[in-house]
């Protein structure tokens, strides 16, 4: 129960950072390559034993609340649900030989920095790519969409690692 409340609070904090800080930063023409999506961190770090169907529905609700703020109904829902769905396949790809501990959150301490970087970057890449593809909604500039999501993945990854260092050090 307390874990659940913690996750909700974490999501609200990320939501506030996303819409009040990151979405407000204006870099002129670089905005195209600087619009990282970080609220997906909740889906990324939640422990592997979490019920899959609840995860999908949780992703749907989170995406909806972001959509309300960003006034892009459906866009964030779709990309976040996709991230939640592909998570279990990526977890099975990068898991160590004896598997993850099912009840422990995935972060830089519990699964190690390098493994977390690989895992988080794949997840973020899916999130960004899905998001920008749906936003553009045509395939003739696929390489630009790809480069754009690559840039933003790097920025979001840097942010997430920083965020984890700041919040996990206390323990």
């Amino acid at each position, binding site marked *: 129960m307390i874990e659940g409340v913690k996750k909700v609070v974490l999501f609200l904090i990320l939501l506030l950072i996303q*819409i*009040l800080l990151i979405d*407000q930063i204006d870099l002129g023409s670089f905005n195209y390559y600087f619009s990282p999506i970080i609220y997906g961190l909740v889906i990324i770090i939640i422990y592997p034993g979490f019920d*899959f*169907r609840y995860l*999908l*529905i949780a*992703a*749907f609700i989170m*995406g909806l609340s972001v*959509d*309300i*703020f960003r*006034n*892009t*109904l*459906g*866009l964030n*829902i*779709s990309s976040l*649900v*996709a991230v939640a*769905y592909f998570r279990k396949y990526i977890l099975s790809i990068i898991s160590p030989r004896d598997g993850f501990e099912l009840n422990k959150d995935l972060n830089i301490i519990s699964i190690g920095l390098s493994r977390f970087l690989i895992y988080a970057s794949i997840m973020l890449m899916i999130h960004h790519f899905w998001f920008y593809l*749906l936003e553009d909604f045509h395939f003739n500039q696929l390489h630009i969409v790809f480069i754009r999501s690559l840039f933003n993945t790097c920025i979001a990854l840097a942010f997430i690692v920083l965020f984890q260092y700041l919040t996990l050090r206390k323990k």
Partner: protein
Amino acid sequence: MRNIIRLIQKYSNLLLFLLLQVIALFLLFSWRNSYHHTIYLSASNNVVGFLYKTNNDILEYFKLEEINDELKAENSKLKQSLYNYVDSTQIHLAFQGLLDEQQFIVRPANVISSQFKQRENYLVIDKGKKDSVVSNMGIVGTKGVIGIVLNSSTNYASILPIINSNFQLAIRHRRSKSFGMLLWDEKNNWKTAVVEDVPEYVKVHNGDIFESSGAAGIFPAGILIGKVIKTEKIPASQFQRVYLNLYEDFSSLSTAYVVDNKYQHEILIIKDKSND
């Protein structure tokens, strides 16, 4: 039948995923321009609007300086058009091209140092020769006349304000248009000033307004200076003394406008000739 149920059970995760995606895409493509979308958003507006407004209230503080500068620039433009205003008695001159519409040029400035407790108070503004501010230009504040430019360096200029015992300016009574001489000494505090040489026959009431006369060519006519609080007859003379409450608050000056009269040198030449 059992096979179908088993199939659904087997792929339930995928089906849930597809269902959610279909809902999301349905929202994205069909609801976006519909009536329900606006209803839904306006219903959620209270929370969202509150959050964005709070955020904006906080961020506004950091933009205040920029906004101030913009407002100052706009104000100086408005003041300039006001000072160059052509009334109906002169409109025929304007049509004939005899009247220069831009006689007065107004530039915004910041007061960066001010005194109001001494006998000889001086102000400094952050505009100088670089912004073509030279001596004898007028300085107008947000509410009324501040003073006259005394000296200017490259980037700064010193101002002789009304509240300096060396200050003198011919001003006029707004209602009767009769002239007087605006003076100040330390017996008055920074709120008040004196007008000397007002003829006795001019009826000055408390609350009457004194304004700039435009005679010296420093200020355009009609800028507010002060309100009458007291009049006093000088015994054995034809004049009365008028005490003014100044419009401009000299204890908290921050914005000033430099008024540049293009034809001021002509007025000075004529005055010199008539003195000879």
